[in-house]
């Protein structure tokens, strides 16, 4: 049995000896290097580029600008939702950092030097930086026209509006929102914000492209979506997909920033121009401005009755997608439709807007917009419970979406473990005892403790496709051909475990072949926590195809039906007849009449899906499965410094079935720690469109010193009927609730409510001060001394 075991990663030894082949390590004979000149203004027209001085530098092969590209017979624009991003700026620049010219040189140093000798003359246009400003009718327009890409089925129905920065308005209408608010006894309205943040995988974006002897474009890239890179590069170069080969080895992290096309189209075009291998490796400061997490403004209006029922919720979410839409439209829709939270609410209205600005582009970031939404709705759950005097846990429990309940999209929920998650939060926080014990803060001690919780819901990317081939060799070993990228999540290991389980092989006899579009079948993307479910399904069924072929032969051989056969421990035998048994190797030998040949199984897994109504967002089948996640924390906040320390963090995720429990725990923990950074300190700061902390010196991510003193990860298994062995996914589940759980614990500790992320010491101190001032002004003279004593 390979399944359910925490086997070691297949590449473990290579990782501790430093021998993993990352793209960053790759070189080729005659390889040239690239450095980019990037826009210094947020919005404007390129009037002139003088590259003569740069091209005269020894070792510089060529400087390529938009003007050079216009001489080529290529498509200039690419993108997963809208083809709005030029290979290199052609007429206009839209953010500080937009690539304007590419220097191709014999070394990185020469290319970097030459960049400084390029002169660019701009005509500046008025920029727009705030998402709400960009939505106004008289706002400067970032894109004059928008071209839908049509690459993905779920994005075909999106109708962009030209002449506006709102590139997508997603609508959900469920029940009758006005009637709902009439039924409500109390109405709460709050606005929450989150800032842009960055992924910062330890390996930067890097690609190596060359034309081979057949004049096919070959690309090695650190990318999470090789199949998409192939189709998009073939679109850009006007080549058939069979003439573009994309290969991906192990990645040094991804977290969403290496999805779709980032630098691949440009690198390929440069290789086409110079007809030599070209490598483009970004530096970390460039990674910051290549893709960010969407900044959001989310206004939530919620109606509740006196008996504790949410009857109406109106959600207005604005997503700052920056200068290029990237996958923002999908986030706006697919995460947008969960904006009302995992609750059974009869009347829901959601308006979710994807908005262009002149900031760095925003796209997928582990959690895919869900953490921004959970931040708002789970903060408001506690605001309501506090105001109404309700227990926040009971308030959630009484209306959480469980099996059989209807989601606001109209879909009936299944395999959704919120019941168990809330029970475990209750238990781990010792909630009932904690709630019933009166708090007696020590007025002398500046450090105050508090507890908080949050739960969140995400829909998996639907529809999508994963194809797999499983080949069983004559010696009884097998290869799995899959385009899933192992970026550190351990997919090579668990996908191999799934194949080994079906084929009755020890897991070390199965190897997962890395993505190579010449060889491995199409897969939508490695993202959205979808690979275990989608690719796992394809591999399970491809392996079953191999097994079926073996059984076909053995059933004839023993003259029994296939139903009487079993495959276990590398052999096939007739049930209840132990002497009728053939080793897999013997079966193959008998099939081919020699100890050679291979058995090939294949499967393409496609999800069922019903496109939501464009006006109401209603669909019976909008997501093939849902993720349920929860977080419980205990914090300690220092009233004098505003610093929050996490004493205990419990992360819970319903994963359906844990194929490799250790790796599931690692994913839950990793996602939660990443969110601690987002909750407490991570934020991209801009000054007139320039990201001013775009360096690891100024932008801090969680280190050994930022970890919770104690932490626990809890796997909940509510098996999914269509998942491989019941499995769903896990990569993002523990990211959902961290921010509001901490904010709710902060409120529990000090009674202050912060609605803007992150919860920096400055913000906490300001909130304490504000609370004290309003409390002082209410209570006037009589308690002045006591208030002073608290400070």
């Amino acid at each position, binding site marked *: 049995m390979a399944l359910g075991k925490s086997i070691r990663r297949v590449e473990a030894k290579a990782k501790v000896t430093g021998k993993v082949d990352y793209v960053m390590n790759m070189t080729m004979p005659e390889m040239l290097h690239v450095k980019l000149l990037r826009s210094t203004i947020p919005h404007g027209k390129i009037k002139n580029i003088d590259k003569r001085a740069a091209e005269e530098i020894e070792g510089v092969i060529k400087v390529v600008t938009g003007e050079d590209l216009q001489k080529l017979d290529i498509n200039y624009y690419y993108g997963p939702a809208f083809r709005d991003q030029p290979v290199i700026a052609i007429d206009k620049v839209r953010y500080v950092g937009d690539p304007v010219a590419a220097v191709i040189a014999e070394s990185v140093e020469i290319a970097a030097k030459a960049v400084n000798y390029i002169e660019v003359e701009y005509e500046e246009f008025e920029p727009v930086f705030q998402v709400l400003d960009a939505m106004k009718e008289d706002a400067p327009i970032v894109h004059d026209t928008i071209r839908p890409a049509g690459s993905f089925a779920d994005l075909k129905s999106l109708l962009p509006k030209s002449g506006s920065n709102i590139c997508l308005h997603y609508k959900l209408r469920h029940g009758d929102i006005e009637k709902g608010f009439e039924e409500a006894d109390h109405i709460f309205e709050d606005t929450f914000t989150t800032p842009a943040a960055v*992924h910062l995988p330890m390996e930067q974006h890097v690609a190596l492209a060359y034309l081979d002897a057949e004049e096919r474009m070959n690309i090695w890239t650190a990318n999470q979506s090789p199949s998409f890179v192939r189709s998009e590069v073939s679109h850009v170069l006007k080549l058939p997909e069979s003439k573009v080969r994309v290969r991906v080895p192990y990645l040094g992290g991804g977290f969403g920033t290496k999805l779709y096309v980032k630098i691949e189209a440009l690198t390929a075009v440069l290789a086409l121009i110079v007809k030599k291998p070209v490598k483009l490796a970004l530096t970390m400061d460039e990674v910051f401005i290549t893709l960010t997490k969407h900044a959001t403004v989310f206004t939530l209006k919620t109606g509740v009755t006196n008996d504790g029922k949410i009857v109406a919720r109106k959600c207005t979410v604005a997503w700052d997608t920056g200068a290029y839409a990237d996958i923002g439209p999908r986030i706006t829709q697919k995460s947008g439709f969960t904006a009302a939270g995992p609750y059974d609410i009869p009347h829901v209205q959601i308006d979710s807007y994807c908005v262009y600005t002149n900031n760095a582009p925003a796209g997928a970031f582990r959690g895919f917009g869900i953490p921004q939404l959970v931040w708002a709705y789970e903060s408001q759950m506690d605001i309501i419970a506090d105001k109404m005097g309700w227990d926040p846990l009971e308030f959630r429990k009484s209306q959480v979406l469980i099996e059989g309940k209807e989601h606001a999209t109209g879909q009936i929920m299944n395999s959704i473990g919120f019941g168990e998650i809330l029970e475990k939060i209750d238990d781990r926080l010792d909630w009932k005892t904690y709630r019933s014990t009166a708090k007696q803060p020590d007025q002398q001690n500046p450090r105050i403790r508090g507890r908080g919780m949050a739960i969140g819901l995400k829909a998996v990317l639907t529809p999508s496709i994963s194809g797999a081939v499983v080949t069983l060799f004559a010696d009884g070993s097998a290869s799995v051909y899959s385009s899933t990228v192992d970026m550190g999540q351990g997919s090579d290991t668990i996908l191999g475990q799934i194949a080994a389980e079906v084929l009755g092989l020890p897991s070390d006899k199965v190897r997962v072949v890395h993505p190579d579009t010449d060889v491995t079948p199409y897969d939508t993307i490695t993202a959205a926590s979808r690979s275990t479910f989608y690719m796992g399904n394809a591999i399970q069924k491809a392996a079953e195809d191999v097994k079926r072929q073996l059984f076909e032969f053995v059933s004839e051989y023993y003259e029994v039906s296939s139903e009487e056969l079993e495959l276990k421990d590398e052999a096939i035998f007739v049930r209840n007849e132990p002497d009728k048994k053939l080793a897999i190797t013997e079966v193959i030998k008998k099939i081919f009449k020699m100890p050679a040949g291979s058995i090939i199984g294949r499967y393409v897994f496609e999800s069922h899906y019903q496109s939501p109504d464009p006006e109401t967002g209603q669909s019976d089948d909008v997501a093939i499965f849902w993720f349920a996640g929860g977080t419980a924390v205990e914090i300690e906040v220092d009233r004098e410094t505003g610093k929050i320390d996490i004493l205990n963090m419990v992360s819970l995720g319903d994963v359906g079935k844990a194929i490799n429990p250790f790796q599931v725990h690692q994913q839950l923990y990793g996602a939660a720690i990443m969110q601690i950074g987002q909750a407490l300190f991570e934020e991209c700061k801009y000054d007139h469109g320039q990201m001013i902390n775009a360096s690891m010196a100024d932008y801090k991510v969680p280190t050994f010193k930022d970890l919770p003193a104690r932490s626990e990860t809890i796997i909940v298994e509510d098996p999914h009927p269509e998942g491989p062995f019941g499995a769903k996914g896990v990569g993002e589940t523990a990211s959902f609730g961290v921010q509001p759980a901490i904010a709710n614990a902060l409120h529990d500790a000090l009674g202050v409510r912060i609605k803007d992320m992150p919860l920096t010491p400055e913000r906490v101190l300001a909130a304490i001060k504000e609370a004290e001032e309003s409390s002082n002004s209410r209570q006037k003279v009589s308690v002045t001394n006591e208030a002073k004593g608290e400070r």
Partner: protein
Amino acid sequence: MKRQIQFTLNGKPVTADVAPHETLLDLLRDTFQLTGAKETCGLGLCGVCTVLVSGKPVSGCLHFASSIDGEEIVTIEGLETEEGLHPIQEAFYEQKAFQCGYCTPGMILMAKKLLEENPNPTEDEIKDYMVGNICRCASYAQIFAAIQEAASLLKQEKVKL
């Protein structure tokens, strides 16, 4: 203007011609094809390019190659011997203390120096010492466990000697 330097690299004497601005990291990666150490932040703040210069961990991205004349350089590639993995590698392997693996060589070399200085580190001492090595996948919990296991493996090894 290049200058010739001589140093010991993973136990072997070597020579190299280095430019004044060349970093130790570039020298190791480009001239000696030792790619275990990598450049991430480029500022000496993330620990991914950590290598040992005469026993001391340094950020290869900030360290000038020309300054290592006569020094002993150890990289991740120099830890494994014919007898197998170094005890710290063994501990990282056993504890599965990595995800993407990009930071792992730097973590292991930093932990090596930590355990040489302090064979019995407490949890807080590990945190203080390792704070400059970042793991964005956040395998921190397993890295802790690996360093603790390595400490005990190294003690056993001393007993054997």
